[in-house]
Each structure stands twice: as C-alpha cells, then as structure tokens.
C-alpha cells in the first residue's frame, strides 16, 4: 500500500533544515501554500533559499516567512507587490539576496531541473542586463542564452485534491508553478483541500503524477492571502 498522507502541516515540514532550498508554488495568491509556509515559520528553519515567482503580500504567507528573517536568498521573477514592503526592506538592507530570473526562464529552469536536462538555450533576455555574465551562443543567426536547470531540497505546493499516491489536480490558475516544482524538488509536499483514496481521481485528468510527490497533507479550508490581508492578519 502506498500512502503519502501525513497528518499535519507541522509534520509535513518537520525535517526542513537550516540552509535548505525550497520551491514555493503560487502566482500572487493563487496556489500559494499558506498553511505549509506558516508551519515552516513555526518550525524555525532559517538561512533558506526560496524559489518562487513572487515575494508575497502583506505580512502573511511568504511575506511573513521573509519578515521573520528566515530567507537569505530569493530566486524570483517579480519580487514586488502593491501591498508589501517586506522584501524591499530586506533587499535594501542587504539581508536577502535576489536572483532575478525572467518568469518563463524560471519555469523552464525548474522543469529542466526536474527533467534531467542540465541546461538549455533560450532566446529570452538576450541583449538585456539579465544576460550579464551568462554564456550565449548563436544558432542559425539568432542569439540564445545558456540557462541551467534548477533543483531544490523541497517544494511546497497547493492542490485542489490529491490521492494517497500523491497524484494531484489543481484549481484553475492556482496550478501555475506547482507541476514543474513538484518535478524539481527532492521532497515535494502538497497541501490539498481533499486527500482521496487511490482511484478517486480520474487517471486521465491527473496533472501531477504521484511519482513527483513525497508527502500529502489535507488542509480543508485553506486561507487566501487577500482575505487574510483584508482582515488585517499577520503571522505568526
């Protein structure tokens, strides 16, 4: 019997050690695994590298983890938010380092990391400051940058439903970075609104096959960042 279910978010993140790299799903609030992030805040690991498209909003979820000074580096495409000064302050202070990556290059580097593709040539960012220091090469008259696959120790992602094998389906645009991140992490942890028995998901509709997932935890009514912020919440 295969059963990747763990009982609580706290258990799911218990072994994260200082210095770990963590891919965190989500584009804005869609797909942000807030309960896993809050469990990680409680857990205490620090000096983390976070790979995520954004840097969070308000003072909950990813922004809260940053505010607790637990993240020494972010790999990110858009570390700005209309309603958060957490990352900008840490960045200007020099506490949190930023590796800025174009959004599509970030997604493709993560997929490559998960797919055993060590590096690839992309036309994105040629001739821009984000090409500085990168190897480039001309093929058939067009210039491309060499970009490297990205892997991580953990991925924290959010699903709509998962089964005990770790198969996942998502909710609408909450899917975003989760499938490639699940491929690229040594330990992928999913919070899902429902955890089902094997066979309850249609095998034709599974988006992330269970082979990419190590732990599944049920979080029945996950918080939404915008609602927490509207309610004036902060964590912890």
């Amino acid at each position: 019997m295969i059963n990747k279910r763990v009982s609580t978010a706290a258990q799911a993140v218990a072994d994260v050690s200082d210095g770990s790299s963590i891919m965190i799903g989500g584009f804005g609030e869609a797909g942000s695994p807030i309960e896993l992030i809050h469990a990680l805040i409680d857990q205490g690991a620090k000096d983390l590298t976070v790979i995520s498209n954004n840097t969070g909003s308000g003072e909950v979820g990813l922004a809260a983890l940053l505010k607790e000074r637990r993240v020494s580096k972010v790999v990110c495409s858009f570390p700005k938010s209309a309603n958060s000064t957490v990352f900008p302050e840490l960045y200007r202070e020099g506490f949190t380092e930023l590796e800025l990556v174009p959004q599509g290059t970030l997604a493709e580097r993560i997929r490559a990391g998960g797919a055993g593709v060590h590096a690839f040539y992309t036309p994105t960012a040629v001739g821009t400051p984000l090409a500085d220091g990168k190897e480039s090469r001309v093929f058939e008259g067009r210039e491309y940058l060499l970009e490297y696959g990205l892997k991580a120790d953990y991925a924290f992602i959010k699903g709509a439903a998962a089964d005990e094998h770790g198969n996942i389906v998502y909710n609408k645009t909450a899917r975003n970075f989760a499938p490639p991140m699940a491929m690229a992490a040594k330990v992928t942890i999913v919070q899902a609104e429902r955890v089902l028995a094997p066979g309850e998901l249609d095998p034709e509709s599974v988006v992330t096959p269970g082979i990419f997932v190590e732990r599944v935890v049920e979080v029945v009514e996950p918080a939404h960042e915008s609602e927490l912020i509207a309610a004036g919440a902060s964590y912890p």
Partner: protein
Amino acid sequence: MTESNERIGWTRDQMASRLAQDIPNGSYVNLGIGIPELVARYVPKGRTLVYHTENGLLGMGPSPADGEGDPELINAGKRRVTALPGAAYFHHADSFAMIRGGHLDLSVLGALQIAQNGDLANWSTGEPGAIPAVGGAMDLVAGVKNVFVITQHTTKSGAPKLVESCAFPLTGRSVVNRVYTDLAVIDVTSDGFRSVDLGPGVDLATVQSRTGAPVLPALETASAG
C-alpha cells in the same frame, strides 16, 4: 489658448480601439497590464480573439463583478477574471512554451522607451535602490510573433519615448513591430520609425517634434484593383 493646450490625438480608449482594429479574427493574444488591457473592450464585432494569460489560462474572459469570482482565477495583473467556453488551464512551463515557442500571435505591452531598431525598455528605470522585477515581459518579446506597444507618445514631462536608442535597461533587442501612441501609429521598420496613421488633429511634424528619432512618412497604400 496656446497650441499645447489644444487637445489633439487619441485618448487612451481611442488608442486601444485603434490597436484593436489591427488584430485579425482568431488571433491568440496576450495583453499586458494597464492600457493594453483596454484593447479587449474594442475588438470589432464579428471577431473573436483568444486571450492568453501567462499565469496559465487560454480563453480568459472579463473580470467578474466586484466580490465575485475565485481568488485562484486571476490574470497576470493578479486581478480576478473569468474563463470562457473553450478555455484551458495549464502550468507555467507549458504557458511559457506557448510564448517562447512562437504560438501566440500578438503581445501588447506598455513601454518606457522604444528605439528606432525595435529595442524595448519596459521593466526598469535602472534607478539605484529600485527593486528589480521583470515578470514575463522578456519572454513575451522574445517569443511572440508580433509585439505591439501601446503608450503615451511622451513621458509626463514631455520627453520622447520613441528614441534613437534606449537609455533604460532593455527588455529585448529589436522586438517591437508597431507602436500605438496618443499621436500616431508607427511601424518599426528596417529604415527606422515610419508613420502608419496619425491621430485626429495630428500632423507628421508634430509627431516628429515629440519623437527622439526620425519618423518617416506613411507609405502610400496601394489601392485595390
């Protein structure tokens, strides 16, 4: 009343409407945040466009009423949207495969500066201390078949946005096909900027005076038959 107080050219909505006329039926289109989003309101009757939002949806529909919708059904500007019949959701690697692989017909973007060779600067003013943030702009301009820029012709202080070469950090090199401003529609050609259309009350001399590089006159349109 001085000339500079006279209202000439197009409003933002008129700019968006002018651009919308140029998008063929059935096109797959990605609209950037801001003025580009207005374009969807002005698509001529009888044409259907399919909107792509890079966070993972084809067949995006308009925003729902305030308070409606799903916080996890959003566009690239992180606003709630809807999905139309025929929509499909996909993950980010697939979404940017569409972009990078040249599957989208058109990307409409805002700009800080456009150079006469088509270079685009639209993500950073390069100020020290600013938080750099690029999102998907570099992917869009590198991959999408046609890149249209929609922007005011000059900055608020009157400085040209269409220039000989960009002073701001580039988003992409030689990527812009056409620029829609409040004053004119301007193609980026191998000879530099060329006027395609002028706004109401606008002449080429006015456009030239507010442009940082030469603007060639419109080619005469070959008449049919």
